[in-house]
């Protein structure tokens, strides 16, 4: 990790680049700094805090936030009195560890590297663009970044939302969307793709703070096109957040209020007063985009983002240089994370000959043996989580209470137990205090248990000698308004954990070897891309396609929005797959059965038809699910009944043909036909772009064609917004409709009639166009059956559910299974390719490693107590318990690697012969007893 560093030059070719860096001085020796914070306390100079968007004051010597990595303070030279004026130096003697060093000089460093991944993020919209909204003139006009810091509990105002002008709590707030996006005034024609989501989030958070506050969102289109994003908008509307379709012209101060002037769709100009205005600012290209482009010689697009192509979305114009994240185009966190994994697989392909040569594997100290004879020494750490916990729960009281318990030899509190300095402190305490059990009361084990277990391992303790108590979600969050009760509950939970901790035992780690092969379900663009990416990594795969040929939906597409023809790409991709010696393609095939676990799956594939039907068994280490989806056909708007009503995909095929009347003179398109609340409860993300693509094609063939698009929100996010603008320039009319006033299509003989309410002219319109085109949405293929077979959860809408929406977007909840393409959610081909590359990256990880570690929390059978009834064998959903013959008796036995630790066997065993590692009867009973036992003997703090 090289921080405070700028790239000065990059030379060489793929596999052999040299990067020249300039590392700016921190003026603090990183190895010596303990992040104690004394220097900041003594520094006399004020410094506007960039981490809090300038809303608070820090000192030139500071750290951005407690969890910052590296956890080292630094001096901002721009305001340090010594660096600027050669005075002061108060910090130098204050620092107990003599870490401050004003003699540090910029350091230049050359890196020899084989590949480059560019992920410089995004920039901010220029302040000139915000001026018309009185930003900078009135203190109560803030950007969404500033507002984010204002609402944050660990932010400068501890989460209290106040007007800067007079400190009152705002009662009426306005969000203005598309500030600096979709705005030709500042040359940002594109949509920033994330602002609608963060505005809804901030509005919801505000309502949590104060349910009485009145919030209005002024928007052009609400673009919540991502997976399950529409649901959040509906939630927002349900709790009273108002959405007004209008363009805000300006904001002017008005008494101590702010007056918004806006025009609505029907041409009316209106005014409204609000206490606070939040500008939903878009994402710019990064400030250093041009300099990166000059240094690396990559091409930028017209908005100064990195230029990429539809079918190679992460490849820059220079070989060996790959792009990921917002620099490739504005995008949200899950898509950035997906692109990063995809970029990793591409960089890995460039470097594959060098794999493993430069890495060092982490080594842990030898594990301390903990036996029953050892004295139990429990350490309790209570985390404040900034003020997330401590603003409600009395943390010192909770810690002290735990300290009074038997076996507790040490207790303390941390501001952030997860920060790097607290981690070091915990490790040190474990050693100094000779702790052999650790209890941490903090946030959720879902996110932080692995981190703390790692800390234990670093300190030489088995990671299972750990108990985590969630006093944030379960106490400070849910009982935010009852601090006393929340504190009592925290004490109860901690007491229970300590009682349990006294009985916990170290559990051994196990590893099992991996079969270096993948099973890929689905031979569309997602499956093929995943197979090729894995082949590039040197791994074989079996590609299972249910139809008679690979290609999937690609075969139905003719051209892309960017104007590329799809046919050439499809042919190239399918040929590459068929020719690859690493990919075994099985067509007319389905998965009949799968057993096993990550690294060691075994699947039966049924293939062929009639007499040629056969079954094959494959052993493989991972599964990539790329089963795809297809166009939905709703029984609406005369689809299937009138020849004049077609879907966008049918229109695309028609337009690519040669028929003379393929682009007729009058066309009505209806968006969201059957989507967002009818047959399908979600937005399919691609239909608006698909409509634009067809519209531009029609206009190319027949410029005279009159096209009317009836829509709810046009969701041409990202650079696709250009196509929307182009369509409007070419005279296409876009008219929004309300859900309770949908257009009506009726067949009149061979003709078709469309009746709708024109919300712009405010009148009913009836017309008989030559063609009606429906944007119908996408449904997943066969996820229900597969979900049962692979035990993969699906969403309410039938798409496979990822393990974590943001941080593990392509992994399934079941280890060793990865999801990509339309089976995960509707998405355009560009995003499908990235996701398939990301799935390949994740799938390659266990294959590269060669072994997997089995979670030690598994069931075990006390064979002396087992009566061989076999109930457990019949109940285990994972086939993880087998019967074995010992002497003349049958006894049950757990196959640890298959066990998922669900506990069904243990709860049904009539003789209590089965226990779960980490959850033995003894441990649970003591935990329950502790709940009822509030009186403890007094103990002195250690």
């Amino acid at each position, binding site marked *: 990790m090289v921080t405070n*560093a700028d790239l000065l030059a990059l030379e060489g070719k793929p596999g052999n680049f040299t990067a020249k860096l300039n590392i700016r001085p921190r003026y603090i020796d990183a190895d010596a700094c303990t992040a104690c914070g004394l220097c900041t306390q003594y520094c006399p100079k004020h410094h506007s805090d960039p981490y809090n968007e300038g809303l608070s004051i820090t000192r030139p010597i500071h750290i951005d936030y407690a969890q910052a990595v590296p956890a080292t303070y630094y001096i901002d030279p721009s305001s340090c009195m010594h660096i600027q004026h050669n005075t002061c130096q108060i910090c130098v003697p204050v620092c107990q560890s003599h870490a401050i060093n004003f003699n540090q000089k910029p350091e230049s460093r050359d*890196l020899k590297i084989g590949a480059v991944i560019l992920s410089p993020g995004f920039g901010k919209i220029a302040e000139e663009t915000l001026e018309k909204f009185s930003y900078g003139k009135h203190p109560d006009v803030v950007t969404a970044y500033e507002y984010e810091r204002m609402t944050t509990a660990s932010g400068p105002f501890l989460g209290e939302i106040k007007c800067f002008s007079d400190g009152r709590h705002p009662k009426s707030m306005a969000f203005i969307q598309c500030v600096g996006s979709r705005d030709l005034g500042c040359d940002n024609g594109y949509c920033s793709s994330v602002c609608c989501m963060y505005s809804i989030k901030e509005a919801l958070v505000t309502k949590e703070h104060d349910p009485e506050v009145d919030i209005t969102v002024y928007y052009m289109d609400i673009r919540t096109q991502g997976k*399950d994003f529409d649901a959040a908008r509906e939630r927002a509307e349900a709790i009273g957040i108002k959405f007004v379709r209008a363009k805000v012209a300006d904001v002017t101060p008005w008494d101590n209020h702010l007056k918004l002037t806006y025009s609505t769709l029907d041409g009316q100009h209106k005014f409204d007063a609000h206490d606070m205005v939040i500008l939903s600012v878009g994402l710019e290209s990064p400030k250093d985009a041009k300099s990166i482009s000059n240094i690396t010689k990559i091409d930028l697009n017209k908005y100064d983002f990195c230029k990429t192509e539809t079918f190679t979305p992460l490849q820059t114009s220079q070989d060996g240089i790959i792009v990921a994240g917002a620099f490739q185009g504005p995008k949200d966190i899950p898509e*950035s994370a997906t692109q*990063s994994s995809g970029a990793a697989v591409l960089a*890995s392909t460039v470097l594959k000959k060098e794999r*493993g040569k*430069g890495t060092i594997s982490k080594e842990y100290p030898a594990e301390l043996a903990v036996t029953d004879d050892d004295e139990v020494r429990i350490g309790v750490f209570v985390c404040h989580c900034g003020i997330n916990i401590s603003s409600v729960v009395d943390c010192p009281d909770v810690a002290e209470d735990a300290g009074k318990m038997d076996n507790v030899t040490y207790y303390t509190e941390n501001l952030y137990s997860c920060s790097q300095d607290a981690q070091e402190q915990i490790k040190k305490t474990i050693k100094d205090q000779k702790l052999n059990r650790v209890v941490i009361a903090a946030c959720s084990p879902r996110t932080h248990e692995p981190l703390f277990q790692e800390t234990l391992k670093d300190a030489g303790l088995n990671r299972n000698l750990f108990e985590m108590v969630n006093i944030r979600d379960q106490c400070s969050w849910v009982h935010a308004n009852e601090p006393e009760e929340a504190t009592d509950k925290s004490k109860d939970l901690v007491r229970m954990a300590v009682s349990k901790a006294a009985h916990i035992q170290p559990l051994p780690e196990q590893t099992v070897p991996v079969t270096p092969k993948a099973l890929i379900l689905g031979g569309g663009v997602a499956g093929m891309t995943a197979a090729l990416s894995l082949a590039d990594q040197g791994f074989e795969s079996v590609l299972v396609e249910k139809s008679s040929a690979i290609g999937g939906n690609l075969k139905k597409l003719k051209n892309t929005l960017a104007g590329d023809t799809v046919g050439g790409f499809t042919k190239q991709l399918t040929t590459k797959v068929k020719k690859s010696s690493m990919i075994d393609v099985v067509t007319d095939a389905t998965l009949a059965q799968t057993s096993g676990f990550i690294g060691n799956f075994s699947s039966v594939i049924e293939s062929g038809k009639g007499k040629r039907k056969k079954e094959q068994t494959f052993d493989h280490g991972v599964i990539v699910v790329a089963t795809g989806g297809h166009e939905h056909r709703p029984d609406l708007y005369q689809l299937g009944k009138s020849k004049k009503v077609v879907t966008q995909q049918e229109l695309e095929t028609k337009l690519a043909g040669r028929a003379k009347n393929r682009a007729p003179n009058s066309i009505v398109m209806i968006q969201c036909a059957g989507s967002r609340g009818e047959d399908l409860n979600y937005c399919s993300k691609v239909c608006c772009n698909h409509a634009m693509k067809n519209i531009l094609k029609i206009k190319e063939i027949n410029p005279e064609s009159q096209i009317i698009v009836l829509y709810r929100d046009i969701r041409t996010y990202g650079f696709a917004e250009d196509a929307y603008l182009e369509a409007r320039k070419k005279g296409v009319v876009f008219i929004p409709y309300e859900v309770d006033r949908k257009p009506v299509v009726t067949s009149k003989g061979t003709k078709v009639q469309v009746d709708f309410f024109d919300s712009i002219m405010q009148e009913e319109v009836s017309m008989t166009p030559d063609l009606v085109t429906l944007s119908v949405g996408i449904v997943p293929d066969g996820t229900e059956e597969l979900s049962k077979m692979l035990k993969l959860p699906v969403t309410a809408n039938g798409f496979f559910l990822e393990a974590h929406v943001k941080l593990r977007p392509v992994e399934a909840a079941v280890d060793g299974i990865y999801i990509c393409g339309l089976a995960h959610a509707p998405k355009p081909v560009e995003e499908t390719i990235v996701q398939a590359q990301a799935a390949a990256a994740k799938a390659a990880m266990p294959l590269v490693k060669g072994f997997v570690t089995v979670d030690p929390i598994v069931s075990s059978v006390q064979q002396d107590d087992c009566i061989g009834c076999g109930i457990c064998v019949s109940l285990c959903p994972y086939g993880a318990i087998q019967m074995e013959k010992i002497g003349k008796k049958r006894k049950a036995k757990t196959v640890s690697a298959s066990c998922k630790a669900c506990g069904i066997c243990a709860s049904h065993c009539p003789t209590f012969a089965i226990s779960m590692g980490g959850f033995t009867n003894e441990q649970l009973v003591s935990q329950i007893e502790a709940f009822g036992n509030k009186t403890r003997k007094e103990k002195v703090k250690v």
Partner: protein
Amino acid sequence: MGKAIKQREGAVMILGGGIAGIQAALDMTELGYYVYLVEKAPAVGGVMAQLDKTFPTNDCSL
């Protein structure tokens, strides 16, 4: 002139230590390569570290 440091084979440079760069760095190490994560600010984390909650689940962002 560049300071002489031990050069590693099979290394990648990732420019930018926000969520994208960090994820790419983690994945590259899992795939068996040495990573130089180059960040212009004093700490990695990028904009995501400034966020309080994330859409649509309102999970903590840090």
